[in-house]
C-alpha cells in the first residue's frame, strides 16, 4: 500500500437543519488523501456533536449526485450533507 502522500481540499455544503447546527452553509477543508464521506462527516460531528444524531437520517452527495458514505473523495470534490427532502 503506498503511503499517504498528500492532502486534498474539498468543498462541503450544509442544508436545512444541518446548516443551523454547523452554523455555516459551506466550508472548505483539507483532508488526508483516501478520506471518504463518512470520515468527513465524523470530523464535523466531532466539532458539532448534535450532528451525530442525524447521521442515520441524512444522505450525502458528491459533485451533485447522491453518493454512498464510503465514497472516496478527491481534490476539488463538492460534498453536501442533505436532510430528508421536503420540496413540493
Amino acid at each position: 500500500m503506498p503511503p499517504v502522500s498528500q492532502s486534498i481540499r474539498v468543498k462541503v455544503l450544509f442544508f436545512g437543519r444541518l446548516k443551523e447546527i454547523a452554523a455555516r452553509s459551506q466550508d472548505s477543508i483539507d483532508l488526508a488523501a483516501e478520506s471518504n464521506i463518512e470520515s468527513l462527516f465524523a470530523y464535523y460531528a466531532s466539532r458539532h456533536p448534535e450532528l451525530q444524531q442525524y447521521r442515520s437520517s441524512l444522505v450525502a452527495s458528491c459533485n451533485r449526485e447522491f453518493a454512498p458514505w464510503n465514497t472516496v473523495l478527491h481534490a476539488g470534490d463538492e460534498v453536501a450533507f442533505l436532510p430528508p427532502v421536503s420540496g413540493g
Partner: protein
Amino acid sequence: MAATFTDITKLVHEPIDPVALAAYVRANGDGAIVIFDGFVRDHSKSRRTLYLEYEAYEPMALAKIEEIAAHLHEKFPIHRLAVVHRLGRLEIGETSVYIAVSAAHRAAAFDACRYAIDTLKRTVPIWKKEYFEDGSVWADGELPPVPSATSALKPAS
C-alpha cells in the same frame, strides 16, 4: 423519446405564473394537459401556519428536475413539460410547485404529471421550513434513494 429542449425546468425566487406555463405546454397537436399545482396550506398537523420558507441545493436540485423531465419523455408519450419550483418565503395560498404536461392522450399526461411530483418530492434537494406563531420547524421529508456502496465505489485515482 422526444427531445426535451422545449421543456421548462426552473427554480424561481418570485411568484410562479401558472397561466403562462399552461399556455406554454399547450400545442394544437395535443389534446390534453394535466396540471399539478401545489400551494401553501394554512395549517400543518393542526397548527396554523404563518408562512413557509423553501431552500434548495440549487444546482443539484435543478439537475434532478431536468433528470425527471428527461425520464418522463422516455417513459411516457408526452409532448411538453413545465416543472417549476419556487424558493424563498411563500405566503399562505401561494404556489410552491407547478407541473404541467401536455400529451395527445390523457393517460400519458396523468401518469407523467403524477410521476413528476412524486419523484420530485422524493429526490430533489429542496427543504421546507414551516413558521408558526410559536416557532418554526423543518418539515418532515423523505430520504432520497442513494446508489448502493458497492456499485458506486469510484475507481482508484
